[in-house]
């Protein structure tokens, strides 16, 4: 009797095993941004969310770790074709209790492992039940533990607007995943999810953030609503949409829904469901190019229609989107670095936000020569084909677009698709 009892006693899964399951289930979520929020906790509490975003470690895949990124549960009722946690997929299931998540977060934060928590979840009994449990976790963290660190909370599509509001009051950032770039694909691959259930909370959050800003202008004491804004994520390569459709969607989300960021996540083949394309590996280069194009939308003053068109619906594999644009627009170049304004400088391939600012700061003192560009730390490898300095071309480069294309290609070792280690059969036999 005693023996049976002790066996029963160790049967429930411990926190370590759950952490293994629920962190590996969360890792395909691309968002690691912890910046954009400044939260000072009450003097009795502890922690602050910093503006600049701090990485606490870098994983073996080279990605920044800044948040404890986990699912509350991977025990899903839904059956989305592209997801490892879909109900028809035989994986080990686990669910954290609220206390387990709270203890992990606090234990990690006190040791400076993390900036805070990123909590998502599979759909348990219902969207409302799931969201309620997630909100409970952050409520304990904020209210009972006075936790002032960063919190990113996923909104479960289909939950009540009351829960969405509560989530926004406790979290720094909330996000609703848009999942797939079109409604048709959503219907095909995630039949239990409705477009409305995704867009409604997104719009609600957008409105709440906007009205909260007004309230906070009138009274600094008004509670903050998702001060780090909202983001979303979509899966790339599981459905047939082209890059032009995707970029236009993102552009609309930035403009209409007031989103802070759209994350793109290359589809990792997890099932042989015949609704899904057969991929040998995740489309990483495509994901990378989309992120670059997204930067052009957010920080460089480009529109989706400038980057792509119906005749040219996919991003160039060989060149980054800005270089590709520059090669199509020889009439824009060369740019004179001692006169061009900030927006024009930003359009030069190889000149980013930092370099453009440095050029403008330095030319206040004297005209910048080619040597001067090196001194202020602007990398000339690519830019030199597109600029002049006091009307002199750089290093006498030819500015014929075709030549430039060739020259660039010669120097282009860095952008070959991220390579994959090939394992030759038989190599490990002997």
């Amino acid at each position: 009797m005693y023996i049976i009892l002790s066996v029963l006693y160790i049967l429930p899964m411990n926190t370590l095993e759950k952490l293994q399951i629920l962190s590996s289930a969360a890792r395909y979520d691309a968002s690691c941004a912890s910046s954009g929020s400044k939260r000072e906790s009450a003097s009795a509490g502890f922690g602050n969310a910093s503006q600049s975003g701090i990485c606490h470690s870098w994983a073996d895949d080279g990605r920044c770790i800044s948040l404890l990124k986990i699912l509350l549960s991977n025990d899903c009722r839904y059956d989305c074709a592209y997801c490892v946690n879909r109900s028809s997929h035989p994986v080990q299931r686990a669910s954290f209790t609220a206390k387990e998540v709270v203890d992990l977060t606090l234990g990690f934060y006190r040791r400076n492992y993390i900036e805070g928590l990123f909590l998502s979840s599979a759909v348990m009994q219902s969207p409302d039940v799931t969201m309620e449990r997630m909100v409970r976790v952050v409520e304990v963290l904020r209210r009972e533990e006075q936790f002032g660190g960063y919190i990113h909370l996923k909104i479960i599509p289909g939950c009540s607007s009351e829960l969405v509001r509560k989530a926004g009051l406790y979290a720094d950032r909330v996000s609703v995943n848009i999942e797939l770039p079109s409604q048709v694909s959503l219907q095909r691959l995630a039949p239990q999810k409705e477009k409305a259930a995704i867009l409604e909370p997104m719009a609600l959050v957008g409105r709440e953030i906007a009205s909260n800003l007004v309230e906070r202008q009138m009274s600094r004491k008004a509670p903050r609503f998702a001060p780090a804004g909202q983001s979303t994520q979509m899966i790339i390569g599981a459905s047939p949409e082209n890059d032009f459709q995707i970029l236009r969607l993102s552009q609309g989300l930035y403009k209409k829904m007031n989103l802070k960021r759209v994350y793109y996540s290359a589809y990792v083949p997890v099932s042989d469901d015949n609704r899904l394309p057969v991929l040998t590996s995740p489309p990483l280069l495509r994901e990378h190019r989309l992120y670059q194009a997204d930067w052009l939308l957010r920080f460089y003053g480009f529109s989706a229609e400038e980057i792509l068109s119906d005749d040219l619906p996919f991003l160039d594999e060989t060149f980054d989107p800005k270089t590709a644009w520059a090669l199509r627009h020889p009439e824009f170049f060369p740019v004179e670095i001692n006169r061009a304004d900030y927006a024009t400088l930003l359009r030069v391939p190889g000149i980013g936000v930092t370099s453009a600012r440095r050029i403008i700061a330095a030319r206040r003192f004297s005209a910048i020569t080619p040597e001067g560009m090196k001194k202020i730390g602007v990398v000339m490898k690519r830019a030199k084909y597109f600029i002049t300095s006091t009307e002199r071309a750089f290093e006498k480069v030819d500015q014929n677009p075709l030549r430039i294309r060739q020259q660039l290609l010669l120097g282009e070792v860095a952008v070959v698709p991220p390579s994959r280690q090939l394992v030759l059969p038989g190599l490990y036999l002997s």
Partner: protein
Amino acid sequence: MKRYLYDGTSESLFSAISWILEEEAEPEKVLLTEQGLELFEEGFFIKANTGQAELLFQRLCQRAPDSAYTITLFMLAEKRGMESSLLRYVSLAFAHGDKVNGYLTHPAVRDIVSIAKRAGRELHRMKGLLRFEELQDGAYFAKMEPDHNLIQPLASWFRTRLRAQNWFLYDVKRRTAACWSNGMLQFGTIDKFYIPALSEDEKRVQLLWQTFFRTIALQDRKNPGLQKSNMPMKYWKYLTEMQT
């Protein structure tokens, strides 16, 4: 070239700069070096004058706050032999205000700004990479060996972030320590050091973190090169997740 000497302390350095800016018509034409580096050295020795040094810094904070911050970061680098560059930088900062940091074509500005930038980068990095361990008495303890002398700015960072717990920072190379205990921050040096006993829970939490660290990586996207360039190996010694 006329040469000035100072005694190696930062008070004396700023006193000398303040003196030169007032007395010399062309401060960019004089040299400023530490005393005692050569056997027969010639030059005017300027004694430390704390009041004057502080006054100079206050004036700079008003005239060019960004430059004052740049100099604070520069001082964390504990660089020797760059006093003349610093002198020129300060004089340019008074002349141009905060715009001076953009004057990167000037060698002195470039020297000071690039060293300050490196210090700032390590400071930012250490805010993330510092690891605390829980001790038996419930206080937390972190060891580090940064290239720059970061203990002051790091301590004031953690004083807000981890204000609800008592903690120590220890710079192993410089043998300096900071201690936050019951709402008081103190600095000191440590001559003898013994390794305090860890709390009972500590190993369990470390194991949880190591597990999380390993599972969060996408196995088919391993990229040790990128990992090391973001997180150079010199920092691994004190990283909990790298001790397995």
